């Protein structure tokens, strides 16, 4: 049975350029009522080595990860069973390293692809040529604070949508790119990931991302399903094209203490198929809607819109797709 858990998917400690000790990071993550955290220091796994020898330091499941902080792009690599050298990847040779990462069961995500780059922040902008996008498992579509309004997140969202339209199966995540505690009340998003029996571990999170079981929200939790015949399909699944019945539940009661202060209010649920809005429904409070859909091959996802930080008609959350064959 798949259960969705709230994670922070991009974080740093003083093992790279963060201010957190691993203990402090785990404590801060607990305060945000998260169920797990991917610790992704720049170009080192030493915080994970520390946590292995100090198991009492992590009071929350920690996903093994590293941020490949190369000169041509930043890339989150989770769960790799041996270390692949980040230093040799050149703008045109990344696929080779993506294959090596996959060969050691790692999962790869592009971090903040449209962040301002060189010389302000070398490698922060994604400049790698990816020849086979099937080698990319996920894209960090939302990065850092105030994700609903930043231009680079809108560009990343559009990039992800373009790749889905080209037929690639790529999951979406958010990441605070958490370096220090900062203002405790920071408007940000969480990535919810569907793991077997609700168990958060490096393995279960990698499996879930590979299967496309993620959604991102700055507020309410989302449950999105499609029924066709006797079968029900959830985020990441594939079904056949044709007539079917969709169902979405939006629940603002979960972790509301964490995001409730940012004026986030869902006003509308949109169902988007192959890049086009195929259905729009007004929404308020806890929302359960059933609706008819006629799906063509491609993909379909749910998106939440409404108020955030005093602005209206902002994208507040979105699911990774259900795929249509």
């Amino acid at each position, binding site marked *: 049975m798949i259960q969705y858990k709230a994670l922070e998917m991009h974080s740093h400690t003083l093992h*790279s350029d963060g201010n957190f000790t691993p203990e402090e990071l785990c404590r801060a993550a607990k305060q945000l009522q998260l169920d797990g955290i991917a610790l992704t220091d720049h170009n080192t796994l*030493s915080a994970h080595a520390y946590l292995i020898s100090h198991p009492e330091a992590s009071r929350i499941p920690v996903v093994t990860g590293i941020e490949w902080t190369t*000169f041509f792009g930043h890339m989150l690599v989770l769960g790799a069973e041996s270390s692949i*050298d980040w230093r040799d990847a050149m703008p045109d040779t990344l696929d080779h390293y993506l294959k090596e990462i996959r060969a050691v069961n790692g999962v790869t995500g592009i971090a903040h692809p449209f962040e301002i780059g060189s010389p302000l922040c070398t*490698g922060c902008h994604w400049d790698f040529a990816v020849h086979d996008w099937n080698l990319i498992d996920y894209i960090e579509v939302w990065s850092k604070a105030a994700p609903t309004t930043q231009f680079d997140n809108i560009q990343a969202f559009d990039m992800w949508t373009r790749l889905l339209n080209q037929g690639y199966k790529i999951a979406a995540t958010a990441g605070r790119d958490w370096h220090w505690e900062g203002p405790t009340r920071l408007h940000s998003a969480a990535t919810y990931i569907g793991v077997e029996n609700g168990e958060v571990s490096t393995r279960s999170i990698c499996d879930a991302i590979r299967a496309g079981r993620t959604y991102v929200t700055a507020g309410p939790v989302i449950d999105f399903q499609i029924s066709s015949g006797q079968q029900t399909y959830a985020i990441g699944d594939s079904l056949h094209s044709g007539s079917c019945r969709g169902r979405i539940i939006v629940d603002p009661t979960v972790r509301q203490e964490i995001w409730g202060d940012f004026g986030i209010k869902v006003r509308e649920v949109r169902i988007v198929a192959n890049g086009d809005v195929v259905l729009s429904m007004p929404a308020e409070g806890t929302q359960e809607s059933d609706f008819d859909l006629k799906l063509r091959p491609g993909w379909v996802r749910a998106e939440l819109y409404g108020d955030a930080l005093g602005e209206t008609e902002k994208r507040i959350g979105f699911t990774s797709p259900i795929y249509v064959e």
Partner: protein
Amino acid sequence: MKKILNQTLVLKPENSKTNVPLSFSLEKDYERLFIRYRYFPKKVEDMDQAKREILQALEKYVPEESRAAYSGWRDYAPLVNLVTLSLDYEKEYLGCAHRHAPEQKHIISAAGSSPGFVPHPAAAGNWKIVLNVHAIIGNPVTCQVEVIGLEKGEAPDDSI
């Protein structure tokens, strides 16, 4: 205490986005390895150049409709050079100290290494420091790297 490596390099803008390997070998086991590196200048002092480079980057990366919010180039000044140090023993990657301080001291030992590096014995064999030259902007940057082998009970001399 044995000085194993003491090297000074000059890094230029064209070295940006390259890795510079510095190999050394240990003839015998040590208790700990002490690594110090520093580079200077850290900041790009030429403010005209900084302004030019920052405005260029904003134009390149920020779409026109969002640029109004990014007009203050001073928010991004001063521009800084960034060189990080990563370390390998034989074929094994031990980590990197990816942070901005232009002077860093690190210990590598089986009992524990400095943050960024996994614990590893200061063992005899082939070692490799790789300087990751993320950004050199404007004037050349001088970079000094020292490696010292420490025996049991020896402490790194702060005057080194």
